[in-house]
């Protein structure tokens, strides 16, 4: 167990450091998120009246789209350099690879959200810094990375790669999308957490189920 935790920590550190040095992915995700936000601004007339209601939906779509860019990259360095085998040999159990990658994707998504929230708040003069809202985003991003890391591990080894990831991921993520948008929307409209409890439980259940199943099957994704 100690070895396992140690490997997970080393993996997360390696990926974050690699990303921090190049900042390729973060820059792309951030720019993409802001551009999506601008598209929404013109696609949907964001008048002050309806803005409050649809903010949760827009923020989530922006984060999901940007997150897909990140997920697509999460295994490419190993795949392109042919380090998969070395990685498998280096860890006590392959589930550590899944867990490390999942944590990295989660952290990267949260980092992008952290950049997007103040910008949205500034552009639309509506503060999104609400503990409940952030809790929903954290849970949603976990579910997203839990399913996304597993799928990305497969799509990176296929012929279509980047093209395939959203097609495989989005249908599986549908419950998460519904739960995040409804829960966050309720919270932003001023409802107490108790009112959206069912959605939060759903998110937690999804996260736990998908993480567990992924840990069980990840071995078959990565091992030749």
């Amino acid at each position, binding site marked *: 167990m100690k070895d396992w935790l140690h490997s997970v920590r080393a993996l997360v550190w390696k990926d974050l450091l690699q990303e921090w040095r190049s900042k390729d992915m973060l820059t792309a995700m951030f720019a993409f998120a802001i551009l999506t936000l601008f598209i929404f601004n013109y696609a949907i007339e964001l008048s002050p009246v309806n803005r409050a209601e649809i903010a949760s939906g827009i923020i989530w779509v922006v984060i999901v789209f940007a997150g897909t860019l990140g997920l697509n990259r999460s295994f490419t360095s190993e795949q392109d350099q042919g380090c998969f085998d070395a990685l498998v040999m280096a860890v006590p159990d392959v589930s550590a690879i899944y867990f490390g990658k999942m944590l990295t994707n989660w952290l990267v998504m949260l980092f992008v959200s952290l950049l997007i929230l103040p910008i949205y708040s500034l552009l639309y003069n509506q503060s999104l810094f609400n503990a409940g809202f952030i809790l929903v985003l954290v849970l949603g991003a976990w579910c997203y990375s839990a*399913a996304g890391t*597993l*799928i990305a591990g*497969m*799509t990176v*080894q*296929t*012929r*279509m*790669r980047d093209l*395939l990831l959203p*097609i*495989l991921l*989005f*249908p*599986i993520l*549908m*419950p998460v999308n*519904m*739960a995040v948008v*409804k829960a966050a929307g309720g919270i932003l409209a001023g409802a107490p957490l108790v009112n959206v409890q*069912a*959605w939060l439980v*759903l998110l937690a*259940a*999804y996260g736990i*189920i*998908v993480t567990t*199943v*992924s840990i069980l*099957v990840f071995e*078959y*994704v990565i091992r*030749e």
Partner: protein
Amino acid sequence: MLFANKNLKLLSFLALLLILAAFAMVLFYAPIELNMGIVQKVFYFHVSAAWIGMLAFLVAAVCGIVYLNKKQLKFDHIAFSAVEIGLLFTAIANFTGMIWAKPIWNTWWTWDPRLTTMTIMAFTYIGYLLLRRGVDNPEKRARFGSVYAIIGFASVPLTFFSSRLLRTIHPTIFGADTGDMAMIPAMYQTMGVSIIAFTFLFAALLWHRSILAARESELDTLRAQTEALEFGEVLDD
């Protein structure tokens, strides 16, 4: 070569007879529903097709688990065949549902949990077929297919539950006190026969398709071997 063995032949004819029987019962035995009229009769095949959709994806997930444990390609052939057939029946369920919904709900489509879940499920398995097409190595294709069938099936109840939390107008026939649609015995009998008939049809189709999948896989292996031989000859020259 239409039938690979005797049992399959028997099963196929049984399925055909049952489907004809179900068809006759829907047309002549089941009464015309008082409020909805003749269009209600589409319901018997609609429910049966939806049931086969669910059953097929369950079969695919179970075969996925078995494949990952046993590594025998035949389970992958069954899983792949089940997904293909399941998609077909899901489409039938969706279209028959639309035929019913237009006069009854006055719309072709509504964001009801069952409709939404069925459609999202269909997209999950279209993804499954695409994923398989992107992998050339049969063993890896089987592994990825199994993993995706398992995770995809695990998400189906969650999708249903979450869309149900939103709202529903779909009639609940079984296990409901509200009585959106009261059924008389003749209707239950017709329903039962069509579900059994569709299940037999599914079993027969699955068997045929799995045999075809096994032959396709043999053909691929043979082709690869021939190519390797030809390549070897070229090298020798």
